[in-house]
Each structure stands twice: as C-alpha cells, then as structure tokens.
C-alpha cells in the first residue's frame, strides 16, 4: 500500500520534471530564434537579470560545499567529514556545469565563450571569473574522477589521482576563494547604481563568507534528501556538527554585515519604507533565524530542524544574491525588472536537470560510501515504506 503510494509520488515528480524540461525546451527555442530580446525582459538599462542573478551568482555559491569540505577533509585532516565529501564534490561539479549552461543562455554570443582563453584583459573581474570557472570546473572533474575510476575498477588511474589529490585540492580551494569573492567584486564597479544597503568595498569578502555558509547549508540539505531518496542512514552527529559550524559562520557573516552598515553610516536607510528595505530584512531574517535556531541543542539534534535551518540559510543566500543583482540595481539604473516567463522556465529546467543528474549519479556511482554501493533493492524498499512525515 505504502509502496504504491510512494510510487505515485515518484511519478508525480517525474511528471513535474517532464513538464519543466518541456517548458525549458520551448523557452530555449525562443531564446535561440528570437534572441535575448524575445526571451528576456532585459533592457539597455538593465542588462543582467535572472540568468546572471540566479543561475550564475547562486549556482556558483550553492556549489561552495565542494571546496569547503575538500579543505576540511584533505587539508585540515578532519576525517569524520569524509562520508559527505563525495556528494559535496558532485554537487559542486554539477553546479559549475549548470552555471556554464546558464551562461550559454545568457551570453549574446555563446559560441565565443572560449574567447577569454586567448583574448586577455587582466584588469577585468569578469576575466578572472571566466578563468576561475574554467579552471575550477576542470579541478572538480578531476576531484570527482576517482568515483568513476572506482566504478570502472581502474586501479592505475586511481593511484595517480591519489598522487595529485593534495595539490588539486589546494588549487580548488584557492580558485574557489578567488572566484566566490570575485563574483562580489563584479559589483564594485557600480558604486552609483547599487543601493547602499548592498554596495560596500567589502562585497568580495561578504560574497566569500556567505558562500562558506551556504556550502555547509547545501551539504546539510543534500544529505537529508539523499538519505530520504536512497534509504540511507542520516549521519546525524555529523550534520549536527556541521550545523554548529554553520551557526558560527552565519554569526560571523551577520556581524560583519552589521558593522559594515554601521561604519558606512547606512543604518538610517533601514527606516526608509521601500522595497529595498523589506527585501533586505527578508534576506537578513533568513540568515538570522537559522543562526539562532542552530545555537539550540534541540534543533541540532533533530534531522528536521537541521534541514529547516539549512533551507532557510540557502533561501537567505539566494535572496542576498538576487538583492545585489536585481533589487539593489533597479533604483540606480532608473528602471525596474521582472523576469519574463521564459527566463524562469530556463532556470527551473536547469535546476530540474541538475536534480535528475545528481539522482542518477548517486544511483550508479559510489558517491556515498559502502552503504550506497551495497545491493540497494532492500534498503530502498524499506525507505519506500517509511511514511513521508518522519
């Protein structure tokens, strides 16, 4: 009974997935044949919209779990995080690939995406971003490669990977640090357009620290989902300790944001009754609430509590990136922007495909240790029998 119920639920998800992909395909056709003008609400005054604000800025940020956990496990030698390293690397790898897909939609001439390789301009933040995306995607491919090699049983390749693994991890951490922060640096050039609640010389630092936060939040998020989808034991003590780290990072981040507003004299702006103020408070609340919750032991002991906090922090992060790229840019650009449905359709399709590939990869590759590699039939059946409201 329960089994069939869960099967209908699964097919509902399949149905939604199919619908999103179809809509995405249609929107892609519009983008290809009618250009950016037909597929977006972008204008000369508002040249960057949802595809940059969400697909790129959030996509890269949400992939931050990859380098933070790689640093924890391989550099700081904190062994107990090892079981969740691979899924984090996979998320990061997929995240970056999807960012590139998003960029292909957004670039006016996507077939020239390789130009920064040959045509250099080291004074440009975008040049640095382009190089970091390329190099870090390559690093992530190599960091994820052992999972493939294990599946295929390529021992020699695995031994080679072990030799280069530490330099690779270090390169990954450096590239990520540069890249996460440089997404913030992109906006340093618009001191008169970006609303002062968000424009600060510290943008690169804030982008970096909030990426660290969301890296942990995403790891909690995906561990929870994977455990439900694949009938795995949730590594609760591990997630609880990540909850602690997340709480401290959020506290540091929010303190920095507050001090920055204080020193720039921007606090009085919070009394202005306008959209910017409301969305700023939303962004802060979505970080502040999980921070307080995660400081309580009850929340850290419950899978649901940890998950809810992770989701809130992720939403707070997304709100921040959209505030910087959309909310904060409207007034200064003298215009407003609401994405066209085709922009949203492409974004949703990319997310759906990301989820689908993650699922497939976890099913067929040794992403999760031992347990997932064991014959899955039985475990999955037991999960399917678990009622949804656990």
């Amino acid at each position: 009974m329960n089994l069939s119920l869960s099967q209908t639920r699964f097919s509902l998800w399949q149905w939604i997935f199919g619908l999103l992909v179809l809509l995405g395909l249609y929107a892609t056709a519009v983008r290809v044949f009618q250009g950016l003008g037909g597929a977006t609400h972008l204008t000369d005054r508002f040249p960057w919209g949802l595809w940059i604000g969400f697909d790129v800025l959030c996509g890269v940020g949400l992939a931050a779990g990859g380098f933070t956990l790689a640093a924890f496990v391989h550099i700081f030698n904190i062994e107990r995080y090892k079981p969740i390293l691979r899924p984090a690397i996979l998320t990061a790898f997929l995240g970056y690939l999807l960012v590139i897909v998003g960029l292909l939609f957004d670039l006016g001439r996507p077939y020239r995406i390789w130009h920064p390789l040959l045509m250099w301009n080291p004074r440009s933040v975008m040049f640095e971003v382009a190089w970091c995306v390329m190099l870090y995607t390559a690093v992530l491919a190599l960091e994820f490669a052992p999972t493939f090699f294990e599946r295929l049983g390529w021992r020699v390749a695995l031994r080679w990977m072990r030799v280069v693994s530490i330099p690779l991890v270090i390169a990954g951490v450096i590239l990520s640090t540069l890249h996460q922060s440089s997404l913030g640096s992109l906006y340093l050039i618009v001191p008169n357009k970006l609303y002062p609640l968000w424009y600060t010389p510290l943008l690169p630092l804030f982008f970096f620290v909030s990426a660290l936060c969301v890296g942990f939040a995403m790891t909690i998020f995906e561990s929870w989902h994977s455990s439900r989808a694949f009938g795995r034991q949730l590594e609760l003590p591990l997630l609880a300790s990540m909850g602690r780290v997340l709480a401290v990072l959020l506290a540091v981040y929010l303190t920095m944001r507050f001090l920055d507003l204080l020193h720039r004299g921007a606090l009085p702006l919070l009394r202005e009754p306008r959209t910017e103020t409301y969305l700023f408070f939303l962004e802060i609340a979505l970080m502040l609430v999980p921070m307080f919750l995660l400081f309580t032991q009850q929340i850290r002991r419950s899978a649901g509590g940890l998950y809810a906090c992770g989701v809130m922090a992720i939403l707070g992060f997304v709100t921040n990136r959209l505030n910087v790229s959309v909310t904060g840019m409207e007034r200064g650009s003298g215009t407003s922007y609401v994405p066209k449905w085709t922009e949203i359709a492409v974004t949703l399709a990319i997310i759906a495909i990301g989820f689908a590939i993650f699922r497939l990869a976890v099913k067929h590759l040794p992403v999760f240790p031992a347990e997932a590699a064991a014959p899955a039939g039985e475990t999955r059946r037991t999960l399917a029998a678990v009622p949804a409201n656990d």
Partner: protein
Amino acid sequence: MPMSKALLYDATLCIGCKLCEQACAERNHLPYNDTVAAEEKLSAHKLTTIRTREGKFMRRLCMNCGDPTCASVCPVGAFRKTAAGPVTYDSSRCIGCRYCMLACPFQVPAYEWNKRLPIVKKCDMCADRVAAGRQTACAEICPTGATIFGERDQLLAKAEKRIREKPEQYVNHIFGATEVGGTAVLLLSSVPFEQFGYRADLPHEPLPMLTWRVLSHVPDIAVLGSVLLGGIWWITHRREEVAAAERGEKARNS
C-alpha cells in the same frame, strides 16, 4: 589625457536641429527618419540623441572616458582607449556578457536585443575619421558650433572662458572635466545636468580603480594561499607520518 582629441557640446548654442543625430546615423549606417528622430533614448540604432526639456537641449553620446570603465571590465578586451581620444569597440572579440553595459557610469552601451547574434553599439567618436585627421561627423555638420571638435585641453580652456565671461548663462560646471577622472566629451549647460539624466553623484576618480584595488591582489592571494594551505596540510598530516614511522620501526625490530 593631454594632447588627445575631444568634443565640446555647449547646450546654450544648440538649436535642436538634430543634424548631429542624422550625420551620426549616416556615418554608422543606421536608419534615420522621423520616428528615430523623435526618440530621446540612446539605443542600438541611435548612438547620439538631442533631448529637449522645456525648450532647453542636451546631447547624449558616449563620453569616451579617459580611463574607460567599459575597457576595464570587458573580459576579452573588446574596448580600447585610443591615444587619439576615442574609445573603440571590436565586435569580433565580444562574447556578449554585457558587463560593459552594467558597469558604464553613463549607461551608454546599447545592445542589439532582437538580433540572434547581437553586438554592443555605442558612439566611438568617429575613431576612423579622427585617426585620419578629420573631425567627428557630428561636429562637422553642426551649424551653430554647439558641438565642436579639438584638443581636449584647448576645449577645456574654451569652456572655462565661456563660463567666466557669461556666468549668468551657464551653470558653473563643465560636465566631463573631472567626472570619473575626466572624459573626452565635455558638456556646458544653462540648467543643472541632472535635469537631463546626467548623474551628479559620480566620483572624480576613474572607476576601474575600484576593481583593480582587489584584482591586483589576486596573484599574491594565490601564492600565499597555496603556501598556507600546503603548510596546514603538512602540519595536520604529521600524525600519520609518525604513525607510519613507528610501524616501520616495529617491523624492523620484530
């Protein structure tokens, strides 16, 4: 920017005939008719405009900055400040990221939104003509001398002189003299520039400094970060080395 060419537009001399718009369209092979003439907004098909507010005129065109923001932000170096003054754009490099449009403090670059393979459009101060020793199309055609072409320092001196001689006729400000470090287009007006959409809050240093301050540290961060992380790895994995050594000793002893 000493010795480079510039344009001076004096709104008090402008009669709003829009011949500059027409000459600009011709030079750039863009259509020009009554509909286009009525548009007051810069766009991919209109690279300069004359705006009218209560009988007063004001021109809009690319300011051809001394240290152009577009040239600094472009990841593929499609924009270039030429020694002669104009800021040029090489569409064969452009990937279409539109960072130039986001970054430009004057909101000048426009995009061909409805083309399948679009490029950025902006006034390039007739770079080819200027390179050949001629003046820009707009300056050449202007019947009243509202737009004139010349050496930047000479035009700047001329503008100062006009304000000095007729202070009641001008706002005491040469727009472009120091804005974002100085631009190759200089503007004079009898009413505040903000009324025509020019920003009053622009910094007087070039904007590229804002990002360069951070970017210039990238190599140092990469090197220092590698040393630091390598060092931490070496410290944290010491325990394993010791354990391995002990194991080796035990094996030898037994």
